[in-house]
């Protein structure tokens, strides 16, 4: 839809870099030592710049109100009480729980349905396959604003506005990014393996569920963690669909905290900061648990095809 589709259904967003190569020869060996030291120093400087905002955030969130904007990064004077206050002021536990439930629902539905569809694209040969796959890729480039209003009207008509359903149920129909990703992995499985199972009388759903699905588990995890992160950090959908504060996810709640305690009222920035830390920490933990999958997901979709 948005760009020309290259032959054989590989088009649009796909980067035309060759699939796999032998591991590159490390070319560091012949580089003078002082040069490598220089590179590391440059990266260290950049790393400090990237980390300082985190350090400040955590430090300032642990200082009393009148010290939040004081110079320095350390939590001095130490005021861990900010977190207890934030916890009491707002239903943070409810929002954490909501984010978790919505995130798992969004990630599980997106992963399952995308895998099902991706297997269809990878295994079967049928008329219109390349055209349809091109269409899948094209939807990735469609601005969300174009479908946002009618989608809202659909959920409104179904009486599901001010419930959490619109936050994840759209994922039941697969998501282009993950269909693309998982198709790549399904394509890498040896076809003979499936043919043999067919001869032994396995049905197509069995091929998918018992053979293909378990074999691409790493890719499924990639899809799952990506969608979980996308759901956890999303503000747009909660902003459109949720009115009742008890249903809010964390980003939506955090926006309320900012509006109520930051600008409004007493400028209680320590509460805003504590809330920000609470919303961020689970994502950092997720990244350290699933780092490999995040990097692989970006590298694969940015490279393969």
């Amino acid at each position, binding site marked *: 839809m948005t760009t020309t589709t290259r032959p054989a259904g590989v088009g649009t967003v796909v980067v035309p870099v060759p699939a796999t190569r032998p591991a590159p020869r490390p070319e560091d060996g012949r580089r003078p030592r002082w040069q490598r030291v220089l590179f590391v120093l440059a990266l260290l400087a950049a790393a400090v710049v990237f*980390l300082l905002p985190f350090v400040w955030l955590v430090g300032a969130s642990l200082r009393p109100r009148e010290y939040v904007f004081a110079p320095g990064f350390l939590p001095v004077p130490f005021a861990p009480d900010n977190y207890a206050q934030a916890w009491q002021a707002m239903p943070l536990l409810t929002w954490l729980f909501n984010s978790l439930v919505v995130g798992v629902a969004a990630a599980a539905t997106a992963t399952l349905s995308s895998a099902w569809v991706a297997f269809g694209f990878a295994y079967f040969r049928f008329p219109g396959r390349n055209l349809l796959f091109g269409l899948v890729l094209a939807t990735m480039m469609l601005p969300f604003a174009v479908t946002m*209003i009618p989608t809202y009207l659909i959920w409104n008509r179904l009486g599901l506005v001010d419930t959490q359903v619109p936050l994840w149920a759209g994922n039941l129909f697969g998501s282009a990014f993950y269909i693309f990703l998982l198709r790549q992995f399904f394509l890498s499985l040896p076809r003979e393996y499936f043919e043999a199972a067919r001869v032994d009388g396995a049905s197509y759903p069995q091929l998918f569920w018992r053979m293909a699905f378990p074999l691409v588990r790493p890719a499924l995890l990639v899809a799952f963690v990506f969608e979980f992160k996308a759901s956890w950090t999303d503000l747009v959908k909660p902003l459109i669909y949720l009115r009742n504060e008890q249903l809010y996810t964390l980003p939506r709640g955090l926006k309320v905290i900012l*509006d109520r305690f930051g600008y409004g009222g007493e400028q209680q920035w320590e509460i805003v900061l504590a809330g920000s830390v609470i919303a961020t920490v689970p994502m950092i933990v997720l990244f350290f648990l699933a780092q490999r999958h995040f990097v692989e997901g970006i590298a694969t979709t940015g490279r393969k095809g």
Partner: protein
Amino acid sequence: MATSVTPAVPGRRRRSPLARREARWAYLFLAPWIVGFLAFTAGPMVASLWLSFTEYDVINAPRFSGLDNYRQLVSDPQVARSLGNTVYYAALHVPLVMALSLGLALLLKRVGRLQGFFRTVFYLPVMTPAVAVGILFLLLLNTQDGLVNRGLALVGIDGPSWTTDPGWVMPGIVLMSLWSLGSTVIIYLAALQNVPGDLYEAADLDGAGPWTRFRHVTLPMISGSLFFTLIVNTIASLQMFTEVYTMYFGNRQTAGSFNSDAASFYVIHLFREAFQFLHMGFASAMAWLLFLLILGITLAQVKLGNRFVYYEGEDR
């Protein structure tokens, strides 16, 4: 079995009953996506096109108003302002993200085992929820007490009023956006590591210096990734919403102390027209203008890219 073991060229086989049965199953696998595409993509696209020619406030039925919305669209100074801001932002954000990410990726490629650590550091901001990023930078960019101006003061620069001076709001937002360049770095790093070492050896034999190697080996070999990130980052930056909405909209614009025009982005304006003022028809017209704009820019980029991107081999 009639189906061949080697992947056949689709459409070359005669369609046996078996093949037809296989095709039925294929569509069964594709069914969720097809249904979703019709219900949540194609249908809504048609619907929003239709709505863009109406006046609609959700409560009353849509009333056909011809080209009124589009006429208003081209004459509305707020639309022009938000569109101008958005394009200004994209024009700064995209080249800066690409250049900085490439620089970082080139360094990362050369530091051996430390690569993993630094890659993690550069990716952590991407994991941070956009609302938290907005809040964080609202405070970091604070004129008197913000970290950014404190840092600038260390080198003797009197920092600007990033969050209140209309002329500095946009540069401040660009600065914030650069913090989250981690995924572009990872894409470039993967591309750099895919450049075959023998190309560099050949270049060395020909007596190429570092710049020549970069210009004539590295750049062409990663041009596919550069092109990809150009397109993706452009599309994303034209749809900037969450961080800026967090910082400057919501309850704040009612406080009145700040003229939010300087921070008005196209999608933010569209969102407010739709869900705050319930101008669903007008907002739909805005959405279609954005769609055509993005389509046009992407097509232009593809056209340009085909001249510069080096396609090796041609796989699949």
